[in-house]
């Protein structure tokens, strides 16, 4: 069984972090683009709102999410009605919670990158026949590569290390919501230090390899 080894929770964590990062990129990219270019008076307000999840302790966010996503919460009830399944204590619920929790870490680097883009590059692309979307993918996005990299690194790492939210919303169910951060926490809590050390080392080694390879790729890209 998975839960007895440290690989199970690690794999689950990777799955969660990957899914979350992908979902976040899809959500955060247009949001960051809008924030980078809007002149709306609501902009600072929306920026502040996006950053708010960082301010609350994860467990507290988890607590509130548990209420909102739970079967008696607005979203949770609606979800149950539509899908028949509960959001909380499920992988889907975890992904939603992680996305909310890590959203600022994806939005901020992207927004900075988009803001420091030279508007003139996009203009040039437009006059060369690129639609706004095309210009985004062929010029703005590659020129913001480092922003995407940072967004990915921060979201991914943050989700890997996330624990308060996940514990609350996910409920530590082996094979489903017991990610490695919770597993480590459990070992620490149960004073099984050897196992905790071993799992931490595994997580760190894995994270290091992932981060290292991303930064190496980034270096290649920017050198080219």
């Amino acid at each position, binding site marked *: 069984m998975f839960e007895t080894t440290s690989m199970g929770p690690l794999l689950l964590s990777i799955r969660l972090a990957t899914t979350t990062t992908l979902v976040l990129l899809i959500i955060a990219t247009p949001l960051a683009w809008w924030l980078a270019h809007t002149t709306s008076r609501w902009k600072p307000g929306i920026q502040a709102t996006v950053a708010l999840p960082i301010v609350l302790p994860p467990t507290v966010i988890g607590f509130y999410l548990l209420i909102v996503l739970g079967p008696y919460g607005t979203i949770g009830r609606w979800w149950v009605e539509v899908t028949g399944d509960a959001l909380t204590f499920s992988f889907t619920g975890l992904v939603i919670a992680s996305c909310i929790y890590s959203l600022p870490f994806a939005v901020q680097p992207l927004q900075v990158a988009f803001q420091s883009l030279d508007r*003139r*590059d996009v*203009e*040039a*692309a*437009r*006059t*060369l*026949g*690129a*639609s*706004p979307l*095309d*210009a985004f993918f*062929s*010029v703005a996005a*590659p*020129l913001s*590569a480092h922003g995407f990299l940072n967004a990915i690194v921060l979201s991914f790492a943050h989700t890997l290390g996330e624990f308060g939210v996940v514990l609350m919303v996910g409920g530590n169910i082996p094979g489903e919501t017991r990610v490695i951060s919770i597993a480590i926490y459990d070992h620490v809590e149960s004073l099984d230090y050897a196992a905790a050390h071993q799992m931490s080392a595994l997580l760190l080694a894995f994270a290091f390899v992932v981060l290292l390879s991303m930064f190496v790729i980034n270096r290649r890209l920017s050198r*080219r």
Partner: protein
Amino acid sequence: MSTNTTTTGTRASIAMRYVLSRADFELDVDLEIPMRGITGVFGESGAGKTSLLRCIAGLEQPSSGRLVVDGNVWQDTASRRSLPVHQRAIGYVFQEPRLFSHLTVHRNLDYGRRRAPERAVNVDFEQIVALLGLESMLQRMPDALSGGEAQRVSIARALLCEPRFVLMDEPLAALDKARKAEILQFLDRLHAELSVPIIYVSHNIGEISALCDQLLVMQRGRVIADGDLQSVLMRTDLPALAGEEAGSVVVAKVASYDAEYGLTCVRFSGGELFVSGRHEPGSELRVRIRANDVSLCRVRPTGTTILNILPAVVEAVHPDAEATVLVRLSLGSDFLTARITRRSSVELNLQAGDEVFAQIKSVAVRKIGVEPGK
């Protein structure tokens, strides 16, 4: 090219009317540019040349405006229509190169080409690369190009996207003379062969007169003169043109080529002129003659190295700078302008109606370009 107020536009023209307001500046133009040849836009720094091009490209949102290209309405603020930038089939060469720093030169060139809709006229990649001398830098990144090299790439990139017409914003400012001359020649050939019309912004009247068929002069956001090159250059009332570059252009037919001395004899209504280099007999040339290169004599001079001496009639003498005057001459059905010192004009007692000889240094005669197809 004529100023109109309805901006209806016809086939084969670019008609526009724009009003654009900025803090210190208002662009207010209403004009029609023929959809052929090269149209020069001349004006001092801050006159609004770049702003005009940006309006045409759709990069600027004018407070009111209408743009009709070839009879198709591209923009009409009254009916809230505006073709998005990428659907306007234009090539835009910016004042600075604006190459994509993440793509090699080759992929920069491909960028527009890949996105071009298929059109009848195809531009030849190899040809343009060769003409702009880009072969050796195709695999380089834009960072590793000098200023002039980058601008050449950017010109090629705009030409390769198969535009209906091209907007060029001082594309040659960063180039050296030799390269400039080469590209000017190429642009000239390009618009003759492919009949891609070009709207060409420049401070340099020399460049403009070497290249353009039509000219419009801007000042403080307004068009103060427009028409075909000859007539605008002949105008003596434009302060912007009052520099040393005043001159005139005549259309001449190649009569013969003298291989021994490398001179071509061309004929126009005012007589014969010798032009450096070989030109195809029977073809038509436009010849620009700078007012500075024309001097006048009462009697036909002899024993001089000046080859081109033509009888002319003084039409009028206009004041110019403090020490000089501009003399308008008629030769057959054509006109020439000569800039001479006021002292000479007084000493020779030049009057309208006087018969004189115009001396033109043959090396100062410039072949300008093949007249576009039709």
